[in-house]
């Protein structure tokens, strides 16, 4: 009987996810206030149903009270954050908030399936950071000096990354964490603020050179710490921000040429880069060593197929670093490739809400901040999912909000706080404009 329920739940969960994804895109088009409000509530209902079904399966299979604790904690957390936002920030983007809850849900479900201890930790971190980040929108609104701290950002970013390089211990050949935190996750946000504050008023040649120097130091420190995924994220963000603020395509071309040259050099210089590339081109031939992770990941996705094996019916634990690097493969294996496609579309929707605010807001500094954070989000999702489905070589970055990892969750929630702050700021700007017109 349990098996029947697990089997049925597979289709129920998939259907709920498909409908949820549909509402995501409906909400982008919908104009009427009433339709929007209704859709947002329906999305919340879908999240609750999906979580309830999934956790029922988890409870039946695991038979541990801890599963119930996680479920209850998660529901209280979602309710609290939804109510607090409605109460404090009426003008925030609730679609963005719903997407955050959905992505976190998928993360909690898979983490609980893989290790309920990790899931509980993840839940506590997510709840604590969401609570702390409730303040961010109001800070952004009230304090105007963020745009003037250019060199503080540069110093802070370089300082933190240098500390990682000098002090962090090697884990799997890379230097990532300091006192249990991964500074590069937070420096990512600081870096966007640096770029925006340097370039928002004036993107003349000398300023671009200045930006290139500081970005270069960041990237060099990351490369020396063997955190190549992050180095790539910083580089692309730098390049696109320079292009947007200067409106000169030639920077883009120079950057792409330089980036390609650097990639070739990295391939020649670093053995682990070559290893990743071989594992990408023909993973089966190096199955025993370099190719193992990506082959296992592809086995997982392939064995799951379009509809997945059902929760607890697959073997995601066979993939190395499944809860952080390869969580997407675990999702595809047990919940199905269609679910995986929906997950990609929800991430895309998440980005569209960031891109949207960067288009609509007038403040030139925050315009750059918004698009910068959006770029970082997209590149990170692209590197993670693209890596595990072997669309590009594996780089070992996390999938924001879904992967296990405290720093990743915290920094993404900070980012969401900033974006929500900008949504509120835009509404204020609109009111200002209305007044001007009169």
């Amino acid at each position, binding site marked *: *009987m349990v*098996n*029947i329920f697990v*089997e049925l739940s597979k289709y129920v969960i998939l259907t709920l996810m498909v409908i949820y994804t549909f509402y995501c895109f409906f909400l982008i088009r919908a104009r009427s206030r009433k339709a929007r409000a209704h859709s947002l509530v329906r999305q919340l209902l879908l999240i609750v149903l999906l979580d309830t079904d999934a956790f029922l399966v988890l409870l039946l299979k695991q038979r541990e009270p801890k599963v119930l604790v996680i479920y209850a904690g998660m529901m209280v957390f979602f309710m609290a954050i939804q109510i607090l936002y409605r109460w404090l920030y009426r003008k925030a983007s609730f679609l963005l908030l719903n997407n955050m809850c959905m992505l976190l849900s998928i993360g909690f479900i898979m983490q609980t399936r893989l290790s309920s201890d990790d899931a509980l930790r993840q839940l506590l971190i997510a709840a604590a950071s969401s609570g702390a980040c409730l303040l961010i929108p109001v800070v952004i609104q009230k304090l105007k000096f963020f745009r003037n701290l250019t060199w503080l950002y540069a110093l802070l970013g370089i300082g933190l990354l240098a500390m990682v390089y000098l002090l962090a211990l090697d884990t799997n050949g890379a230097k990532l964490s300091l006192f249990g935190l991964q500074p590069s996750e937070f420096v990512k946000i600081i870096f966007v603020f640096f770029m925006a504050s340097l370039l928002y008023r004036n993107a003349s040649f000398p300023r671009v050179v200045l930006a290139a120097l500081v970005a270069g130091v960041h990237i060099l420190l990351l490369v020396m710490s063997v955190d190549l995924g992050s180095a790539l994220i910083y580089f692309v963000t730098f390049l*696109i921000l320079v*292009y*947007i603020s200067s*409106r000169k395509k030639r920077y883009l071309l120079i950057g792409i040429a330089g980036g390609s040259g650097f990639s070739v050099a990295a391939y020649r210089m670093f053995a682990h880069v070559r290893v990743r590339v071989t594992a990408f081109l023909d993973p*089966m031939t190096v*199955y025993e060593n370099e190719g193992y992770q990506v*082959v296992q990941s*592809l*086995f*997982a*996705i*392939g*064995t799951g*197929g*379009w509809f997945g094996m059902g929760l607890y019916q*697959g*073997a995601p634990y*066979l993939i190395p670093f499944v809860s952080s690097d390869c969580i997407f493969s675990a999702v*595809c294996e047990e919940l199905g*490739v269609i679910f*995986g*496609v929906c997950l*990609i*579309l929800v*991430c*895309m929707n998440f*980005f*569209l809400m960031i*891109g949207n605010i*960067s*288009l609509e807001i007038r403040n030139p500094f925050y*315009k750059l901040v918004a*698009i910068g954070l*959006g*770029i970082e989000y*997209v590149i990170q*999702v*692209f590197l993670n*999912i*693209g890596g595990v*489905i*072997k*669309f590009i070589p594996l780089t070992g970055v996390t999938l924001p909000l879904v992967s296990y990892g405290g720093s990743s969750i915290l920094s993404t929630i900070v980012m969401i706080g900033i974006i929500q702050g900008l949504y509120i700021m835009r509404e204020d700007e609109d009111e200002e404009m209305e007044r001007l*017109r009169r």
Partner: protein
Amino acid sequence: MKRWKDYEDKLEMERQKRQALFLKNEKREKKRQNREYAWVSFFLVLAFLSLAGYLCYYTFALRESFISSPYNTRQDIFQDRVVRGSILSSDGEVLARTYLEGWDNTEKRMYPYGRLFSHVVGYAAEGKGGLEAEANFQLLTSHEFFIDQMKNEFKGEKNLGDTCVTSLSVTLQQAAYDALGDHRGAVIAIEPSTGRILAEVSKPDFDPNDLIDNWEELVGDEDNSSLLNRAVNGSYPPGSTFKIVTALAYYRRMGTLDGYSYTCDGSITREGASIHCYDWNAHGAEDIYGAFAYSCNAAFADIGLFLGGAALKACAEELLFNKKLPLDGCRQSSFSLDGGSDTQAVMQTAIGQGETLVSPLHMALITCAIANNGVLMKPTLIDRVVNADGEIIRETLPRESRRLLTADEAGAMRALMEDVTEYGTASSLSYRGYTCAGKTGSAEYDAYGNSHSWFVGYLDQEEPSLVVAVLVEDGGSGSDSAVPVAAQVFDAYVWG
């Protein structure tokens, strides 16, 4: 009063005009300012869509071939829900099946033919081997009718796994097995027009039925290496069968086989290095056909020196030496000559000694390409996969692997190989009620002149229907041991 109203109207109109202009300008300004933002957003959205697209492409087109890899141990978790399917011969005989035993219905895997198919069918215990490993995914996947599957679910019973129908023929396998007798060695028989493998024997063998009991002994026994499938993973010097490659290289250089002549006095010495013919036989004056048919080492060493190491290497590599063979999990053959090699090495390699190492499968594949007008078909063992009710789930269609020779080159090689059975070293194969062709070989493996016995060839000169490769370890010359084995396989194929 009226004027006052007119004035007010005028003011209002101007205000509206100004506002419209303001809005328009603002919109235009915003649009201009946002152009870069829109472009960047567009490309980032494209990144997401490409991810989703590739994921669907993988699931639709690539996944089947990927997950059926023997490395995929995920199916083993299906074992609690699926009864492992059977393996059948091409005419429906059971080669392996799972049955339930005792009061608690424990599953046991049974191999009715015991040792006969030990390597090719393999074993499902102790890490799996042979087809049991290759087809593990299919055997543990159930395509039962979905209502039956749901019924089983409710009753708490297992679904029945799919059955693999192989291309193996019991008659041919038995003939090859018996012909090899107590010798160590391997026989492989392939249908050249389709690539279907009809027989694959390797000795010494083992009984898969009591594999678990004898496992330690089998693994520890390095003298016999009974677990090694010599047909696809053995590596032997090719001996005179390599003369096919040397002759092909000669044909490629000259565009014809005619016009070559050599006078053999039993040995050849060049630059201090010398090579002799089998038993120091002096073959006298001969053309290339005679040299090939009587397997004259001196003549082929001479041809090898004429061609040089680089030409031999190019030709060998086009015939898949040092390359991945088109069958999963089989050994790659090695060839080490190049333009800088010395005279001794060139002469040795040209007659199939030296450092060249090859598997019986590889020699069979080269012969298959020659027999099939130059085109190598991808070798296969599974004809089709059917569900528990016998409905076809997947069928293997003959697929071209690649063209190894042109049709002209294949024709020239066939003319050479036909002479071998008509009057040469394999003339014992003539007058048996069918025509055939081939090449013998004796591959010396130590300094005392002991040799492995080789034969590769095909049945039916007009339209080749079967290719065999035979290797008998320590069997002396090709005609001594390997040719009689091939004769019995051909007999079994023709007369049943």
